Protein backbone atom coordinates (compact mmCIF):
# COMPACT_ATOMS: atom_id res chain seq x y z
CA UNK A 1 0.00 0.00 0.00
CA UNK A 2 2.84 2.37 0.86
CA UNK A 3 4.53 1.61 -2.47
CA UNK A 4 1.30 2.35 -4.37
CA UNK A 5 0.85 5.62 -2.49
CA UNK A 6 4.40 6.64 -3.33
CA UNK A 7 4.06 5.86 -7.03
CA UNK A 8 0.77 7.77 -7.11
CA UNK A 9 2.20 10.79 -5.29
CA UNK A 10 5.00 10.88 -7.85
CA UNK A 11 2.59 10.59 -10.78
CA UNK A 12 0.24 13.27 -9.47
CA UNK A 13 3.24 15.49 -8.76
CA UNK A 14 4.41 15.14 -12.36
CA UNK A 15 0.94 15.88 -13.70
CA UNK A 16 0.83 18.99 -11.50
CA UNK A 17 3.76 20.36 -13.57
CA UNK A 18 1.75 20.35 -16.82
CA UNK A 19 0.51 23.96 -16.48
CA UNK A 20 4.13 25.17 -16.41
CA UNK A 21 4.23 24.37 -20.11
CA UNK A 22 1.49 26.95 -20.38
CA UNK A 23 -0.13 25.68 -23.56
CA UNK A 24 -3.92 25.91 -23.46
CA UNK A 25 -4.33 22.69 -25.46
CA UNK A 26 -2.45 20.58 -22.93
CA UNK A 27 -4.23 22.19 -20.02
CA UNK A 28 -7.57 21.41 -21.54
CA UNK A 29 -6.61 17.84 -22.37
CA UNK A 30 -5.15 17.40 -18.89
CA UNK A 31 -8.29 18.66 -17.18
CA UNK A 32 -10.43 16.33 -19.30
CA UNK A 33 -8.15 13.38 -18.54
CA UNK A 34 -8.28 14.03 -14.81
CA UNK A 35 -12.05 14.31 -14.95
CA UNK A 36 -12.36 10.98 -16.75
CA UNK A 37 -9.85 9.57 -14.27
CA UNK A 38 -12.27 10.49 -11.47
CA UNK A 39 -15.15 8.88 -13.37
CA UNK A 40 -13.20 5.69 -14.06
CA UNK A 41 -11.84 5.37 -10.52
CA UNK A 42 -15.35 5.90 -9.19
CA UNK A 43 -16.85 3.23 -11.41
CA UNK A 44 -14.12 0.89 -10.22
CA UNK A 45 -15.59 0.88 -6.69
CA UNK A 46 -18.86 -0.69 -7.78
CA UNK A 47 -17.96 -2.26 -11.12
CA UNK A 48 -14.40 -3.43 -10.49
CA UNK A 49 -14.27 -4.15 -6.78
CA UNK A 50 -17.85 -5.30 -6.14
CA UNK A 51 -18.47 -6.64 -9.66
CA UNK A 52 -21.77 -4.83 -10.23
CA UNK A 53 -22.02 -3.46 -13.82
CA UNK A 54 -23.33 0.02 -13.02
CA UNK A 55 -24.33 2.49 -15.72
CA UNK A 56 -25.18 5.15 -13.14
CA UNK A 57 -22.05 7.29 -13.70
CA UNK A 58 -23.94 9.59 -16.09
CA UNK A 59 -26.74 9.99 -13.54
CA UNK A 60 -24.34 11.00 -10.76
CA UNK A 61 -22.44 13.29 -13.14
CA UNK A 62 -25.55 15.12 -14.29
CA UNK A 63 -26.98 15.29 -10.79
CA UNK A 64 -23.71 16.77 -9.52
CA UNK A 65 -23.50 19.25 -12.39
CA UNK A 66 -27.04 20.51 -11.80
CA UNK A 67 -26.74 20.49 -7.99
CA UNK A 68 -23.59 22.59 -8.22
CA UNK A 69 -25.05 24.92 -10.82
CA UNK A 70 -28.35 25.47 -8.99
CA UNK A 71 -26.52 26.00 -5.68
CA UNK A 72 -24.38 28.68 -7.33
CA UNK A 73 -27.48 30.24 -8.85
CA UNK A 74 -28.66 30.79 -5.26
CA UNK A 75 -25.37 32.42 -4.34
CA UNK A 76 -23.44 29.52 -2.78
CA UNK A 77 -19.69 30.01 -3.28
CA UNK A 78 -18.20 27.82 -6.00
CA UNK A 79 -16.05 25.40 -4.00
CA UNK A 80 -18.78 24.95 -1.41
CA UNK A 81 -21.23 24.26 -4.24
CA UNK A 82 -18.92 21.50 -5.53
CA UNK A 83 -18.86 19.94 -2.07
CA UNK A 84 -22.64 20.12 -1.85
CA UNK A 85 -22.89 18.46 -5.26
CA UNK A 86 -20.68 15.63 -4.03
CA UNK A 87 -22.87 15.21 -0.94
CA UNK A 88 -26.05 15.28 -3.05
CA UNK A 89 -24.68 12.52 -5.30
CA UNK A 90 -23.59 10.57 -2.22
CA UNK A 91 -27.06 10.72 -0.64
CA UNK A 92 -28.72 9.89 -3.94
CA UNK A 93 -26.39 6.91 -4.44
CA UNK A 94 -27.22 5.61 -0.97
CA UNK A 95 -30.98 5.71 -1.62
CA UNK A 96 -30.61 4.34 -5.13
CA UNK A 97 -28.23 1.62 -3.96
CA UNK A 98 -30.64 0.26 -1.35
CA UNK A 99 -33.25 -0.12 -4.09
CA UNK A 100 -31.16 -1.22 -7.09
CA UNK A 101 -28.54 -3.46 -5.52
CA UNK A 102 -31.17 -6.14 -4.92
CA UNK A 103 -30.86 -6.79 -8.65
CA UNK A 104 -27.92 -8.62 -10.15
CA UNK A 105 -26.09 -8.82 -13.47
CA UNK A 106 -28.00 -7.59 -16.50
CA UNK A 107 -31.00 -6.52 -14.45
CA UNK A 108 -28.89 -4.23 -12.31
CA UNK A 109 -27.15 -2.83 -15.41
CA UNK A 110 -30.45 -1.97 -17.11
CA UNK A 111 -31.96 -0.45 -13.98
CA UNK A 112 -28.91 1.75 -13.41
CA UNK A 113 -28.94 2.76 -17.08
CA UNK A 114 -32.47 4.12 -16.80
CA UNK A 115 -31.68 6.38 -13.84
CA UNK A 116 -29.85 8.99 -15.95
CA UNK A 117 -32.78 9.11 -18.41
CA UNK A 118 -35.26 9.67 -15.58
CA UNK A 119 -33.14 12.44 -14.07
CA UNK A 120 -32.73 14.10 -17.47
CA UNK A 121 -36.49 14.20 -17.96
CA UNK A 122 -36.95 15.61 -14.46
CA UNK A 123 -34.38 18.34 -15.09
CA UNK A 124 -35.97 19.04 -18.48
CA UNK A 125 -39.37 19.61 -16.95
CA UNK A 126 -38.27 21.56 -13.85
CA UNK A 127 -37.84 24.66 -15.97
CA UNK A 128 -38.06 27.20 -13.11
CA UNK A 129 -35.14 25.69 -11.25
CA UNK A 130 -32.93 24.34 -14.02
CA UNK A 131 -33.88 26.27 -17.11
CA UNK A 132 -35.09 23.01 -18.67
CA UNK A 133 -33.99 22.43 -22.25
CA UNK A 134 -32.65 25.97 -22.44
CA UNK A 135 -29.76 24.98 -20.23
CA UNK A 136 -28.31 26.85 -17.31
CA UNK A 137 -25.64 29.55 -17.25
CA UNK A 138 -23.20 29.64 -14.36
CA UNK A 139 -21.60 32.73 -12.85
CA UNK A 140 -18.18 33.43 -14.34
CA UNK A 141 -15.25 32.76 -12.01
CA UNK A 142 -13.63 35.79 -10.40
CA UNK A 143 -10.29 35.21 -12.12
CA UNK A 144 -9.84 37.70 -14.92
CA UNK A 145 -7.44 36.04 -17.30
CA UNK A 146 -8.52 33.03 -19.35
CA UNK A 147 -5.17 31.36 -18.58
CA UNK A 148 -5.64 31.69 -14.83
CA UNK A 149 -9.10 30.18 -15.14
CA UNK A 150 -7.82 27.22 -17.13
CA UNK A 151 -5.08 26.65 -14.60
CA UNK A 152 -7.52 26.91 -11.69
CA UNK A 153 -9.86 24.25 -13.09
CA UNK A 154 -6.94 22.00 -13.94
CA UNK A 155 -5.77 22.05 -10.32
CA UNK A 156 -9.32 21.61 -9.06
CA UNK A 157 -9.71 18.43 -11.12
CA UNK A 158 -6.25 17.31 -10.03
CA UNK A 159 -7.19 17.72 -6.37
CA UNK A 160 -10.43 15.81 -6.91
CA UNK A 161 -8.59 13.02 -8.76
CA UNK A 162 -6.03 12.76 -5.95
CA UNK A 163 -8.84 12.57 -3.40
CA UNK A 164 -10.62 9.86 -5.40
CA UNK A 165 -7.37 7.94 -5.74
CA UNK A 166 -6.72 8.16 -2.00
CA UNK A 167 -10.22 6.80 -1.37
CA UNK A 168 -9.69 3.87 -3.76
CA UNK A 169 -6.28 3.06 -2.33
CA UNK A 170 -7.65 3.12 1.19
CA UNK A 171 -10.67 1.02 0.22
CA UNK A 172 -8.59 -1.51 -1.70
CA UNK A 173 -6.46 -2.30 1.34
CA UNK A 174 -9.21 -2.13 3.96
CA UNK A 175 -11.75 -4.56 5.34
CA UNK A 176 -14.31 -2.97 3.01
CA UNK A 177 -12.18 -3.72 -0.04
CA UNK A 178 -11.61 -7.31 1.08
CA UNK A 179 -15.35 -7.78 1.61
CA UNK A 180 -16.06 -6.34 -1.84
CA UNK A 181 -13.62 -8.80 -3.40
CA UNK A 182 -15.50 -11.62 -1.68
CA UNK A 183 -18.81 -10.28 -3.02
CA UNK A 184 -17.38 -9.91 -6.52
CA UNK A 185 -16.26 -13.53 -6.57
CA UNK A 186 -19.25 -15.19 -4.94
CA UNK A 187 -21.89 -13.11 -3.25
CA UNK A 188 -23.85 -16.01 -1.71
CA UNK A 189 -20.69 -17.51 -0.21
CA UNK A 190 -19.64 -14.08 1.12
CA UNK A 191 -23.01 -13.74 2.82
CA UNK A 192 -22.63 -17.16 4.47
CA UNK A 193 -19.17 -16.16 5.63
CA UNK A 194 -20.52 -13.21 7.60
CA UNK A 195 -20.11 -10.35 5.09
CA UNK A 196 -22.96 -7.84 5.42
CA UNK A 197 -23.39 -7.77 1.66
CA UNK A 198 -26.08 -5.06 1.50
CA UNK A 199 -24.04 -2.63 3.59
CA UNK A 200 -20.87 -3.32 1.62
CA UNK A 201 -22.50 -2.99 -1.79
CA UNK A 202 -24.25 0.25 -0.84
CA UNK A 203 -20.95 1.60 0.50
CA UNK A 204 -19.27 0.83 -2.82
CA UNK A 205 -22.12 2.46 -4.72
CA UNK A 206 -21.94 5.57 -2.52
CA UNK A 207 -18.20 5.83 -3.18
CA UNK A 208 -18.91 5.44 -6.90
CA UNK A 209 -21.37 8.36 -6.76
CA UNK A 210 -19.85 11.02 -4.50
CA UNK A 211 -16.71 11.88 -6.48
CA UNK A 212 -18.51 11.76 -9.82
CA UNK A 213 -21.05 14.24 -8.46
CA UNK A 214 -18.29 16.62 -7.45
CA UNK A 215 -16.61 16.16 -10.84
CA UNK A 216 -19.88 17.07 -12.55
CA UNK A 217 -20.09 20.28 -10.55
CA UNK A 218 -16.49 21.21 -11.36
CA UNK A 219 -17.21 20.49 -15.03
CA UNK A 220 -20.26 22.78 -14.92
CA UNK A 221 -18.25 25.62 -13.43
CA UNK A 222 -15.45 25.02 -15.93
CA UNK A 223 -17.81 25.30 -18.93
CA UNK A 224 -20.04 28.03 -17.42
CA UNK A 225 -22.99 26.44 -19.19
CA UNK A 226 -24.75 23.07 -18.94
CA UNK A 227 -27.76 21.48 -20.57
CA UNK A 228 -29.48 18.15 -19.85
CA UNK A 229 -28.41 16.12 -22.94
CA UNK A 230 -24.78 17.09 -22.31
CA UNK A 231 -24.37 16.21 -18.62
CA UNK A 232 -26.74 13.22 -18.56
CA UNK A 233 -25.01 11.68 -21.60
CA UNK A 234 -24.83 7.89 -21.31
CA UNK A 235 -21.35 8.08 -22.85
CA UNK A 236 -20.00 9.19 -19.46
CA UNK A 237 -21.00 5.77 -18.13
CA UNK A 238 -19.81 3.85 -21.16
CA UNK A 239 -16.43 5.61 -21.36
CA UNK A 240 -15.77 5.13 -17.64
CA UNK A 241 -16.45 1.41 -18.01
CA UNK A 242 -14.28 1.05 -21.13
CA UNK A 243 -11.43 2.90 -19.40
CA UNK A 244 -11.53 0.63 -16.36
CA UNK A 245 -11.66 -2.49 -18.53
CA UNK A 246 -8.71 -1.20 -20.56
CA UNK A 247 -6.65 -0.45 -17.49
CA UNK A 248 -7.65 -3.39 -15.34
CA UNK A 249 -10.75 -3.76 -13.21
CA UNK A 250 -10.37 -3.92 -9.45
CA UNK A 251 -6.80 -2.57 -9.33
CA UNK A 252 -6.07 0.93 -8.02
CA UNK A 253 -3.98 2.18 -10.93
CA UNK A 254 -6.00 0.46 -13.65
CA UNK A 255 -8.68 3.15 -14.02
CA UNK A 256 -6.11 5.97 -14.23
CA UNK A 257 -4.00 4.12 -16.77
CA UNK A 258 -7.13 3.27 -18.72
CA UNK A 259 -8.38 6.87 -18.72
CA UNK A 260 -5.03 8.21 -19.92
CA UNK A 261 -4.74 5.53 -22.61
CA UNK A 262 -8.30 5.91 -23.83
CA UNK A 263 -8.14 9.69 -24.17
CA UNK A 264 -4.70 9.55 -25.79
CA UNK A 265 -5.99 7.03 -28.32
CA UNK A 266 -9.10 9.10 -28.88
CA UNK A 267 -7.04 12.25 -29.40
CA UNK A 268 -4.55 10.54 -31.70
CA UNK A 269 -7.11 8.67 -33.78
CA UNK A 270 -9.32 11.71 -34.04
CA UNK A 271 -6.50 13.78 -35.44
CA UNK A 272 -5.36 11.25 -38.02
CA UNK A 273 -8.62 9.63 -39.12
CA UNK A 274 -11.12 12.44 -39.07
CA UNK A 275 -13.68 10.53 -41.17
CA UNK A 276 -13.59 7.13 -39.50
CA UNK A 277 -12.20 7.89 -36.06
CA UNK A 278 -14.97 6.25 -34.01
CA UNK A 279 -14.62 3.09 -36.09
CA UNK A 280 -10.85 2.94 -35.66
CA UNK A 281 -11.11 3.66 -31.95
CA UNK A 282 -13.75 0.97 -31.51
CA UNK A 283 -11.59 -1.57 -33.32
CA UNK A 284 -8.60 -0.78 -31.12
CA UNK A 285 -10.69 -1.22 -27.99
CA UNK A 286 -12.06 -4.55 -29.21
CA UNK A 287 -8.53 -5.78 -29.89
CA UNK A 288 -7.25 -4.62 -26.52
CA UNK A 289 -10.10 -6.27 -24.62
CA UNK A 290 -9.73 -9.47 -26.66
CA UNK A 291 -6.01 -9.86 -26.07
CA UNK A 292 -5.79 -8.31 -22.61
CA UNK A 293 -9.05 -9.29 -20.96
CA UNK A 294 -7.77 -8.29 -17.54
CA UNK A 295 -6.51 -4.92 -18.66
CA UNK A 296 -3.13 -3.30 -19.13
CA UNK A 297 -2.24 -3.57 -15.44
CA UNK A 298 -2.18 -7.36 -15.82
CA UNK A 299 0.99 -7.06 -17.90
CA UNK A 300 2.97 -5.66 -15.01
CA UNK A 301 1.42 -8.19 -12.66
CA UNK A 302 2.35 -11.04 -14.97
CA UNK A 303 5.94 -9.83 -15.22
CA UNK A 304 6.02 -9.53 -11.46
CA UNK A 305 4.88 -13.11 -10.83
CA UNK A 306 7.33 -14.45 -13.41
CA UNK A 307 10.15 -12.90 -11.45
CA UNK A 308 9.07 -14.72 -8.33
CA UNK A 309 8.25 -18.32 -9.20
CA UNK A 310 6.30 -20.20 -6.58
Amino acid at each position, binding site marked *: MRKDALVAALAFGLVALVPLGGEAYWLRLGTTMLMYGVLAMSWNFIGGMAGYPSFAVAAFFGLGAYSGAVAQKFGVPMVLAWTLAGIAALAFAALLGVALLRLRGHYFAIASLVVAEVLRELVNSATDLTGGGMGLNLPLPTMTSIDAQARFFFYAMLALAALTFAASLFTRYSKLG*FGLRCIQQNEA*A*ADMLGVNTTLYKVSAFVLSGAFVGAAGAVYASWLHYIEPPDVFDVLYSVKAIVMVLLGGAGSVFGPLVGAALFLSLEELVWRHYLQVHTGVLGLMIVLLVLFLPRGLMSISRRAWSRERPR
Partner: protein
Amino acid sequence: MSALLELAGVTRQFGGLRALSQVTLSVAQGEVLGLIGPNGAGKTTLVNVITGVHPASSGRVRFAGRDITRLRPYQVARRGVARTFQIVQPFPDMTVLENVSAAALFAGGARYGREARDEAMEHLRFVGLADIADRSAAALTLATRKRLEFAKGLAMRPRLLLLDEVNAGLNPNEIDQALELIRAIAARGITVLIIEHLMKVVLSLCTRIVVLHHGELIAAGAPAAIVEDARVIQAYLGRRYAREQGAVRG
Protein backbone atom coordinates in the same frame (compact mmCIF):
# COMPACT_ATOMS: atom_id res chain seq x y z
CA MET B 1 -27.24 -31.53 27.84
CA SER B 2 -29.06 -28.39 26.80
CA ALA B 3 -30.33 -27.83 23.29
CA LEU B 4 -28.10 -25.64 21.11
CA LEU B 5 -30.38 -25.62 18.09
CA GLU B 6 -34.13 -26.05 18.19
CA LEU B 7 -36.53 -26.23 15.27
CA ALA B 8 -40.23 -26.05 16.14
CA GLY B 9 -42.80 -26.89 13.46
CA VAL B 10 -40.62 -25.57 10.64
CA THR B 11 -42.28 -25.52 7.23
CA ARG B 12 -40.76 -24.21 4.03
CA GLN B 13 -42.86 -23.72 0.97
CA PHE B 14 -41.52 -23.03 -2.55
CA GLY B 15 -44.65 -21.99 -4.43
CA GLY B 16 -46.78 -25.12 -4.43
CA LEU B 17 -43.97 -27.36 -3.29
CA ARG B 18 -43.68 -28.07 0.42
CA ALA B 19 -39.98 -28.82 0.83
CA LEU B 20 -40.16 -29.07 4.60
CA SER B 21 -43.26 -29.81 6.59
CA GLN B 22 -43.62 -29.35 10.33
CA VAL B 23 -40.07 -30.34 11.20
CA THR B 24 -39.42 -30.34 14.91
CA LEU B 25 -35.89 -31.15 15.92
CA SER B 26 -33.50 -30.38 18.70
CA VAL B 27 -29.71 -30.61 18.53
CA ALA B 28 -27.92 -30.91 21.85
CA GLN B 29 -24.68 -29.14 22.68
CA GLY B 30 -21.71 -31.33 21.76
CA GLU B 31 -23.71 -33.79 19.71
CA VAL B 32 -22.70 -35.18 16.32
CA LEU B 33 -26.06 -35.49 14.63
CA GLY B 34 -26.51 -37.23 11.30
CA LEU B 35 -29.22 -36.08 8.92
CA ILE B 36 -30.03 -38.61 6.23
CA GLY B 37 -32.77 -39.12 3.66
CA PRO B 38 -33.27 -39.99 0.00
CA ASN B 39 -32.50 -37.41 -2.71
CA GLY B 40 -34.96 -34.55 -2.64
CA ALA B 41 -35.97 -35.21 0.96
CA GLY B 42 -35.27 -31.61 1.94
CA LYS B 43 -31.92 -31.98 3.70
CA THR B 44 -30.21 -29.04 2.04
CA THR B 45 -33.39 -26.99 2.40
CA LEU B 46 -33.22 -27.64 6.14
CA VAL B 47 -29.67 -26.26 6.21
CA ASN B 48 -30.81 -23.26 4.16
CA VAL B 49 -33.64 -22.61 6.63
CA ILE B 50 -31.28 -22.73 9.61
CA THR B 51 -28.72 -20.43 7.98
CA GLY B 52 -31.31 -17.92 6.79
CA VAL B 53 -30.79 -18.42 3.05
CA HIS B 54 -34.42 -19.51 2.68
CA PRO B 55 -36.18 -18.47 5.90
CA ALA B 56 -38.92 -20.76 7.22
CA SER B 57 -42.42 -20.12 5.86
CA SER B 58 -43.76 -20.95 9.30
CA GLY B 59 -42.36 -22.32 12.55
CA ARG B 60 -39.41 -21.12 14.59
CA VAL B 61 -35.66 -21.72 14.65
CA ARG B 62 -33.81 -21.04 17.89
CA PHE B 63 -30.06 -21.08 18.33
CA ALA B 64 -28.38 -20.84 21.73
CA GLY B 65 -31.63 -19.68 23.27
CA ARG B 66 -32.24 -16.92 20.72
CA ASP B 67 -34.73 -16.78 17.86
CA ILE B 68 -32.86 -16.75 14.53
CA THR B 69 -35.78 -17.56 12.21
CA ARG B 70 -35.74 -14.26 10.34
CA LEU B 71 -32.04 -13.37 10.53
CA ARG B 72 -30.02 -12.84 7.36
CA PRO B 73 -27.28 -15.39 6.51
CA TYR B 74 -24.43 -13.11 7.58
CA GLN B 75 -26.09 -12.54 10.95
CA VAL B 76 -26.58 -16.26 11.52
CA ALA B 77 -22.93 -16.80 10.57
CA ARG B 78 -21.78 -14.23 13.13
CA ARG B 79 -23.86 -15.90 15.85
CA GLY B 80 -21.79 -19.06 15.43
CA VAL B 81 -23.41 -21.22 12.77
CA ALA B 82 -20.96 -22.25 10.04
CA ARG B 83 -21.79 -24.36 7.04
CA THR B 84 -19.93 -26.05 4.28
CA PHE B 85 -21.47 -26.29 0.84
CA GLN B 86 -22.43 -29.47 -0.94
CA ILE B 87 -20.78 -27.98 -4.00
CA VAL B 88 -17.66 -26.35 -2.58
CA GLN B 89 -17.49 -22.61 -3.12
CA PRO B 90 -14.10 -21.03 -2.50
CA PHE B 91 -13.34 -17.52 -3.76
CA PRO B 92 -11.44 -18.57 -6.90
CA ASP B 93 -9.28 -15.46 -7.39
CA MET B 94 -7.97 -15.51 -3.84
CA THR B 95 -5.29 -17.59 -2.20
CA VAL B 96 -6.13 -20.38 0.20
CA LEU B 97 -5.00 -18.18 3.08
CA GLU B 98 -7.16 -15.24 1.95
CA ASN B 99 -10.18 -17.52 1.73
CA VAL B 100 -9.78 -18.61 5.33
CA SER B 101 -8.86 -15.08 6.47
CA ALA B 102 -12.18 -13.84 5.09
CA ALA B 103 -14.01 -16.32 7.31
CA ALA B 104 -11.96 -15.34 10.36
CA LEU B 105 -12.45 -11.64 9.64
CA PHE B 106 -16.14 -11.41 8.84
CA ALA B 107 -17.66 -14.15 11.01
CA GLY B 108 -14.92 -15.08 13.45
CA GLY B 109 -14.46 -11.59 14.84
CA ALA B 110 -10.72 -11.41 14.12
CA ARG B 111 -9.34 -7.98 13.32
CA TYR B 112 -8.33 -7.03 9.77
CA GLY B 113 -4.70 -7.68 8.92
CA ARG B 114 -2.25 -9.79 10.86
CA GLU B 115 -4.74 -11.12 13.40
CA ALA B 116 -7.07 -12.57 10.74
CA ARG B 117 -4.11 -13.98 8.79
CA ASP B 118 -2.51 -15.60 11.83
CA GLU B 119 -5.76 -17.16 12.87
CA ALA B 120 -6.40 -18.42 9.33
CA MET B 121 -2.92 -19.95 9.24
CA GLU B 122 -3.62 -21.80 12.47
CA HIS B 123 -6.75 -23.39 10.99
CA LEU B 124 -4.90 -24.27 7.80
CA ARG B 125 -2.32 -26.08 9.92
CA PHE B 126 -5.11 -27.94 11.70
CA VAL B 127 -6.61 -29.24 8.45
CA GLY B 128 -3.18 -29.86 6.92
CA LEU B 129 -3.14 -27.19 4.22
CA ALA B 130 -0.50 -24.89 5.71
CA ASP B 131 2.06 -25.60 3.00
CA ILE B 132 -0.26 -24.54 0.16
CA ALA B 133 -1.53 -21.38 1.89
CA ASP B 134 -0.28 -19.15 -0.93
CA ARG B 135 -1.73 -21.27 -3.73
CA SER B 136 -4.71 -19.91 -5.66
CA ALA B 137 -7.96 -21.49 -4.48
CA ALA B 138 -9.04 -22.12 -8.07
CA ALA B 139 -6.20 -24.60 -8.64
CA LEU B 140 -7.03 -27.04 -5.83
CA THR B 141 -8.17 -30.65 -6.18
CA LEU B 142 -11.59 -31.59 -4.89
CA ALA B 143 -10.20 -33.21 -1.74
CA THR B 144 -8.12 -30.16 -0.83
CA ARG B 145 -11.03 -27.86 -1.62
CA LYS B 146 -13.14 -29.80 0.87
CA ARG B 147 -10.39 -29.39 3.44
CA LEU B 148 -10.39 -25.69 2.69
CA GLU B 149 -14.13 -25.67 3.44
CA PHE B 150 -13.36 -27.20 6.84
CA ALA B 151 -10.73 -24.55 7.54
CA LYS B 152 -13.15 -21.78 6.51
CA GLY B 153 -15.86 -23.26 8.69
CA LEU B 154 -13.54 -23.43 11.70
CA ALA B 155 -12.23 -19.91 11.15
CA MET B 156 -15.76 -18.66 11.67
CA ARG B 157 -15.39 -19.77 15.31
CA PRO B 158 -18.62 -21.75 15.13
CA ARG B 159 -20.59 -23.36 17.93
CA LEU B 160 -22.49 -25.37 15.35
CA LEU B 161 -20.97 -26.68 12.14
CA LEU B 162 -23.29 -27.83 9.36
CA LEU B 163 -21.55 -30.21 6.98
CA ASP B 164 -23.50 -30.65 3.76
CA GLU B 165 -22.21 -33.79 2.05
CA VAL B 166 -18.57 -33.00 2.62
CA ASN B 167 -17.59 -36.49 1.55
CA ALA B 168 -19.38 -36.62 -1.80
CA GLY B 169 -16.94 -37.32 -4.60
CA LEU B 170 -14.04 -38.37 -2.39
CA ASN B 171 -12.23 -41.73 -2.65
CA PRO B 172 -12.20 -44.13 0.33
CA ASN B 173 -8.78 -42.99 1.47
CA GLU B 174 -9.78 -39.33 1.39
CA ILE B 175 -13.00 -40.17 3.23
CA ASP B 176 -11.02 -41.75 6.05
CA GLN B 177 -8.96 -38.59 6.39
CA ALA B 178 -12.09 -36.46 6.41
CA LEU B 179 -13.60 -38.68 9.10
CA GLU B 180 -10.57 -38.15 11.26
CA LEU B 181 -10.86 -34.43 10.77
CA ILE B 182 -14.54 -34.36 11.71
CA ARG B 183 -13.77 -36.36 14.85
CA ALA B 184 -11.05 -33.87 15.79
CA ILE B 185 -13.48 -31.00 15.25
CA ALA B 186 -16.12 -32.65 17.43
CA ALA B 187 -13.46 -33.24 20.08
CA ARG B 188 -12.98 -29.48 20.25
CA GLY B 189 -16.53 -29.24 21.59
CA ILE B 190 -18.09 -28.01 18.35
CA THR B 191 -21.55 -29.38 17.74
CA VAL B 192 -21.79 -30.99 14.31
CA LEU B 193 -24.79 -31.62 12.09
CA ILE B 194 -23.76 -33.77 9.19
CA ILE B 195 -25.74 -34.44 6.05
CA GLU B 196 -24.48 -37.57 4.42
CA HIS B 197 -25.38 -40.31 2.00
CA LEU B 198 -22.53 -42.62 2.93
CA MET B 199 -23.80 -44.85 5.72
CA LYS B 200 -20.24 -45.79 6.67
CA VAL B 201 -19.61 -42.17 7.60
CA VAL B 202 -22.88 -41.67 9.41
CA LEU B 203 -22.68 -44.88 11.40
CA SER B 204 -19.10 -44.39 12.52
CA LEU B 205 -19.43 -40.71 13.47
CA CYS B 206 -22.87 -39.88 14.68
CA THR B 207 -24.24 -40.15 18.16
CA ARG B 208 -27.76 -39.81 16.82
CA ILE B 209 -29.46 -39.87 13.43
CA VAL B 210 -32.60 -38.19 12.12
CA VAL B 211 -34.25 -39.19 8.85
CA LEU B 212 -36.01 -36.84 6.48
CA HIS B 213 -38.39 -38.06 3.77
CA HIS B 214 -40.57 -35.86 1.54
CA GLY B 215 -39.85 -32.95 3.85
CA GLU B 216 -41.01 -34.75 6.97
CA LEU B 217 -39.02 -36.12 9.86
CA ILE B 218 -39.86 -39.83 9.86
CA ALA B 219 -37.44 -41.22 12.41
CA ALA B 220 -34.88 -40.22 15.01
CA GLY B 221 -32.68 -42.30 17.23
CA ALA B 222 -29.41 -44.15 17.73
CA PRO B 223 -27.65 -45.30 14.52
CA ALA B 224 -28.24 -48.99 15.19
CA ALA B 225 -31.96 -48.47 15.67
CA ILE B 226 -32.34 -46.30 12.59
CA VAL B 227 -30.97 -48.86 10.14
CA GLU B 228 -33.56 -51.36 11.44
CA ASP B 229 -36.45 -48.92 11.29
CA ALA B 230 -39.16 -50.12 8.89
CA ARG B 231 -40.14 -46.59 7.78
CA VAL B 232 -36.55 -45.76 6.93
CA ILE B 233 -36.07 -48.92 4.91
CA GLN B 234 -39.32 -48.19 3.15
CA ALA B 235 -38.27 -44.64 2.33
CA TYR B 236 -35.02 -45.79 0.80
CA LEU B 237 -35.87 -49.11 -0.76
CA GLY B 238 -39.63 -49.10 -1.26
CA ARG B 239 -42.62 -50.68 0.42
CA ARG B 240 -42.26 -54.16 -1.09
CA TYR B 241 -38.68 -54.55 0.00
CA ALA B 242 -39.59 -53.39 3.49
CA ARG B 243 -42.41 -55.95 3.63
CA GLU B 244 -40.17 -58.78 2.48
CA GLN B 245 -37.62 -57.83 5.07
CA GLY B 246 -40.34 -57.80 7.69
CA ALA B 247 -41.62 -61.22 6.53
CA VAL B 248 -38.21 -62.82 6.67
CA ARG B 249 -37.60 -61.43 10.08
CA GLY B 250 -41.08 -61.94 11.40
